[in-house]
């Protein structure tokens, strides 16, 4: 199988990471911040798998699966925080949540 080389996949992954970083930085709804974080993690996964294919090395795919598990636990904790905020009747706005500020 041929097709696009690994540099094309890395370019797509870089653009996806930039879009996700923009979403994390610019949006204020914590749910959408979490979704953009998923975009960034997935772009890293795409780069890992592209390099695993390029270097014929399985460690990249194994690490991508580990990243997937870490992303699932991050979503678990993040959504737990969102539910806790909603129960305390706080505004879902990452700019107005400053109770932990030192």
């Amino acid at each position, binding site marked *: *199988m*041929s*097709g*696009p*080389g*690994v*540099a094309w996949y*890395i*370019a*797509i992954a*870089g*653009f*996806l*990471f*930039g*879009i*996700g*970083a*923009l979403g994390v*930085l*610019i*949006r204020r*709804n914590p*749910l*959408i911040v979490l*979704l*953009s974080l*998923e*975009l960034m993690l*997935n772009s890293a*996964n*795409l780069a890992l*798998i*592209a390099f695993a*294919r*390029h270097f*014929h090395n*399985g460690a990249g*795919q*194994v*690490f*991508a*699966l580990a990243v997937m*598990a*870490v*992303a*699932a*636990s*991050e*979503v*678990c*904790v993040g959504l*737990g*925080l*969102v*539910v*806790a905020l*909603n*129960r*305390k009747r706080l505004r879902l706005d990452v700019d107005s949540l400053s109770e932990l500020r030192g």
Partner: protein
Amino acid sequence: MNALVVASVGNGLVWIVWVVAGFSLLASGVAVVSFSNPFYSALALIGNLASLAVMYLLLSAEFVAAAQVLVYAGAVMVMFLFVIAYVGPRREEAWSGGPTWQSVGAVLAAGALLVEIVVAVGLQASGHLGSDGKVGPAFGTPAWIGRVFLTDHLLAFEITSVVLLIAAVGGVILGSHARRGVPNPEASTR
């Protein structure tokens, strides 16, 4: 001659699938960031994950593609949609008073990250990453991944399970503390 025609048709097909998947990947990524309703953002992220799975299949990572669809587009996104339905479809209020230093800085920081990635890949990749080698037919299959996971990367496998367990316990603790805090928020914070 015949084999050459077949090979070039297969190559063109791979390119077409790649272009379609890449376009839908970037378009759904922009949609995730730009929708004001988190429900639509989550639906766009499902499309994003599906096109990523197509990319993984093109990179001969069959097991990772299947896990992506099952774990991400299935379990994680269902959890997201449940929480969005629980919280209610709140729209983000528009920014008041024009672009602040924060939003301008955010756009600048994201652009700087993108430029950094492009420059780093371009400097390193020129000449090195063009070739596309052959991999064996077993590369990326579930049997191969399972063998690698349980021999070479056994410690990573076990640590991953511990991380998932700790995250699940943390989610439960976060939820139960909030439930006790509702009747008398003052008493629980003091």
